[in-house]
């Protein structure tokens, strides 16, 4: 039995859903960002796997994957800056305690 497209898609689905679970259940904002990183990785696996099995001659999937990696880095940078700012003014990184805008 050889490894095909479906195998990669199954693993990436599982990884994506694990990331989603992390995003939904974590209190710590940094942990939520880690969940998002897992989801982006799952997406990247898809991009590269489709590139390999659907259009192996081109590198479009690789280019998209590189752009996604770039966006992930930017997202981490800005997101973590927000965490730092929240921590500085509210002294917490737990999203359920950041509730000054809520009443």
């Amino acid at each position, binding site marked *: 039995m050889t490894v095909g497209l479906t195998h990669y898609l199954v693993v990436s689905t599982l990884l994506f859903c694990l990331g989603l679970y992390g995003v939904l259940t974590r209190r710590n904002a940094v942990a939520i960002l880690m969940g998002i990183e897992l989801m982006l990785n799952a997406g990247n696996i898809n991009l590269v796997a489709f590139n390999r099995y659907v259009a192996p001659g081109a590198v479009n999937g690789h280019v998209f994957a590189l752009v996604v990696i770039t966006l992930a*880095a930017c997202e981490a940078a800005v997101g973590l800056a927000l965490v730092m700012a929240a921590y500085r003014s509210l002294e917490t990184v737990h999203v359920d305690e950041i509730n000054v805008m809520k009443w």
Partner: protein
Amino acid sequence: MPKVVLDWLYVGVFAVVGVVLAVVPLVVVWLLAPRLSLPQKRLTYESGVVPFGQAWAQFNVRYYLFALVFVVFDVEVIYLYPWAIVFRQLGAFAFYEMVIFLGILLVGLAYAWRKGALEWV
């Protein structure tokens, strides 16, 4: 097996063998070395006084700013690698593209510089 996969198979084997060879001396030590557990021994070093409080203290946000600028420029460098090996085949156009790309990022560097994000006070 394609060359790429074979190349990185070696990398994987190197990683595994490296971990094994690093763990072996630790196991040897675990077997050989004396074990005499005194509570004082496990105190952390703190210039000779009994450690107090937690190791963690409020650190400066500047550490984060440097890490941030690092991530942005590290990402920028990944675009330079493919450019570096093909720009000669693609001629002047490729060069101008890179000038624009780097020009935009140098604005970012200038901004960070100006705002004092690169300053350690």
